C-alpha cells in the first residue's frame, strides 16, 4: 500500500525537522512514551517477554532509524503501529537516547552451551562480526546482538532468510541465505551468550 501524504507537512528550506508535532495532534510527554515502551520491552529496556526484543544498549542510531522506519510504515509491525504513529522526530531522538543508555543484561532464557559453541563457529564463517563487531555489540545502524533474546533473534533470522523481512540494506538477507533452522538457532544461542 502506498501511503500518500495526507499530512501536508511543508517544511521550508530554513526549518529543521520534517514533520512538525502539530501535524499529529496532541503528543504526550516523552517520559510517558518511554514508560509505555517499557510495558513490553522491559522496565530497564531488557525484555522478559517472548519474541519482544530488548532495546537496552542498542546503538542510538539503530533505535532512531528503526523508529522512523516504523513510524513511516516502511517497517510494518502491527503491534507497533498504534505506538509509533504520532511520534515526532524529537520524541524519537529522546527515546533512542534513553534506551541506548541502558545496560544490556543477559536474557532469562536458558542458553544451550553446545549450540552456542557451534554458533560461534558459524558466526565466524558467516562473518557476523564484520558488521556487528566481534563482540556483537553493534554500531550505528547495525543492531546489538549480544544479550538479545534468543526467541527474537531466531525469528528475525528466519524472516531475513525467508525474505519476509528486509533490513535497511538487504545485507542480512544475503548473509543468512540458505542457513538451516538448526544453524539459525545455534547462531542465536551464541549471540545471546555473554561474549568473551
Amino acid at each position, binding site marked *: *500500500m*502506498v*501511503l*500518500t*501524504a*495526507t*499530512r*501536508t*507537512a*511543508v*517544511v*521550508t*528550506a*530554513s*526549518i*529543521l*525537522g*520534517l*514533520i512538525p508535532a502539530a501535524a499529529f495532534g496532541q503528543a504526550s510527554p516523552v517520559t510517558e512514551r518511554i514508560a509505555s515502551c517499557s510495558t513490553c520491552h522491559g522496565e530497564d529496556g531488557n525484555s522478559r517477554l517472548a519474541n519482544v526484543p530488548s532495546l537496552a544498549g542498542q546503538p542510538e*542510531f539503530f533505535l*532512531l*532509524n528503526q523508529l*522512523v*522506519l516504523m513510524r*513511516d*510504515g*516502511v517497517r510494518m509491525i502491527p503491534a507497533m503501529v498504534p505506538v509509533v504513529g504520532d511520534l515526532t*522526530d524529537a520524541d*524519537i*531522538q529522546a527515546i533512542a537516547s534513553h534506551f541506548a543508555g541502558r545496560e544490556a543484561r543477559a536474557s532469562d532464557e536458558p542458553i544451550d552451551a553446545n549450540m552456542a559453541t557451534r554458533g560461534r563457529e558459524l558466526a565466524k*564463517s*558467516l*562473518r557476523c*562480526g*564484520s*558488521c556487528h*563487531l*566481534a563482540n556483537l555489540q553493534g*554500531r*550505528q*545502524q*547495525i543492531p546489538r546482538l549480544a544479550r538479545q533474546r534468543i526467541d527474537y533473534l531466531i525469528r528475525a533470522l528466519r524472516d531475513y*532468510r*525467508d*525474505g519476509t523481512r*528486509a533490513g*535497511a*540494506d*538487504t*545485507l542480512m*538477507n*544475503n548473509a543468512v*541465505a*540458505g*542457513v*538451516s*533452522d*538448526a*544453524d539459525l538457532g545455534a547462531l542465536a544461542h551464541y549471540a545471546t551468550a555473554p561474549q568473551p
Partner: protein
Amino acid sequence: MTTPSPRPLSWFIAVLVTIGAIAVRGQAPPPPGFSPIDRTNEAQSKQDATLAPHATPPIATPVDRIPLDKISLPSGFKVELYSSGHPGGRTMVMGPKGTVFMGTRQLGRVYAVVNNGGTRAARVLLQGLTQPNGLAIRDGSLYVLAINRVLRYDDIENKLDNPGMPVDMTQAFNLPTEVHHNWKYAAFGPDGKLYVQVGANCNICEVNPGIHSQIRRYNLDGSGMEIVARGVRNTVGFDWHPVTGELWFTDNGRDWIGNEGPQDELNRVVRGQEGAFYGFPYCHAEGIPDPDIRRPQPCAGVVMPAALTGPHVAALGIRFYTGTMFPQSYRNVAFIARHGSWNREQKSGFDVVVARIDGGRARIEPFMTGLLDAKANEFHGRPSYVLPLEDGSLLVSDETNGAMYRITYSAGAGR
C-alpha cells in the same frame, strides 16, 4: 478419480539427487536469487574485515550544520544551498513546473521540492514504499519505480497535496522482486523508451543472466522489453551523450577483494551493439578476472570500460551537461556523483567528478571536492545524483545531509 500421469525415471533421480544434496549439506536451498557462494574468504580480502556500509540519517541535518563551507570547486564556480529537510533524498527529476522530485532508499519516501520564487519547500509526497530510488518524468506524469513496482502518477504537479492512486503498471513491467541491488534507476531515452536496470542480487555470484545484471528498456506501458546491456553488476545512473545519442552508464565494482578495487566503471553502449556483455561476474574493470567466480577466458567478449572511476567510490548519478552557464570547456562533459566508499580502509569518493569524453574513452577529473576529510578518514556528506537545470546551473543531492546544492558559474567571480 484420474490416475496421475507417470513421470519419467529421470525425474525421480533428479529429485533424489536434490534431496540428497540438501541432506548432505544440512541446509535448505537458498531463496531464489541468492547465492551461498557470496562469502568471500576473509583472509583473502586483505582488508579490515569490519568495514561496513555507512548509515544514512533518517532525520535531516539542521541547516546550520550542513557542510556547505567544506565544498570546493574550480575557480569561478560557486555553491549554495538549494534546499534541505529531505533526509535520505537521492535521485532528482524536475517536472515541467519546476518541482524537483527526489527518491530515497531505505526511508521509502518520495519528496516534492517546490520552488516558490527563491525559496524551496520540501514535503513528503509518498511514503511506505520499498526503496523508491527510480524516478522519471514524462508528459507531466511521475513514474516511481520501487524494486519491482512501477507506479505512474499523472498530472502530478497539480496534485502535490493529494497525488491520489497511481496507475499501477507493476505487472506489465514484470521486474524481479528481490531487493538486493535492485533499487531502481530509471530514465527516458532519446527513443522515448523507459530504461531501467536490474542489478546483480549479490556482491559476487553467478546470476541468472536472463533476469539480473542488465539494463533494459520498455515501451511506456511496460511492453516490448529489450535488454540493452548485460553483465552489469549494479548501475544506478545513466544518461545519453548529447551528440552521439549513445547510452553511458556508471557501474559499481564488487567488494571484499581488496582496497584497490576492482575499480568502478564508466561504460558506453556503442550504437548498434545493444545487448553487449560488460563482464559481471567473471571480469572486472579493465580485465581483472574474478577470484571467486571463475570461467575459462573470463574477459573474452567483454566490453571494456570507457574509464575507471576509482576503487569502491560508488559512482552513482551521471548527467551530460549541455547548458551555457558553465565555460565552453564543460559543454557535453558528464558530471558524475561519487557517493563514496565503504569497503575501503582509506575512504575515497564523496565528490563530483567530470568525465571528458573523447570517442570511446573518457578522462576523469575532479570537480566538487571537500566533503571527504582524507586525513581524518571521515566524510561530511555523500553526493548521490546530479541534475542540470535549464539555466545551466547544476544541482547535487547529498543523501547524508538531506540537502541539495546548486552550483553556478560566473566568469568574474574569481575564487
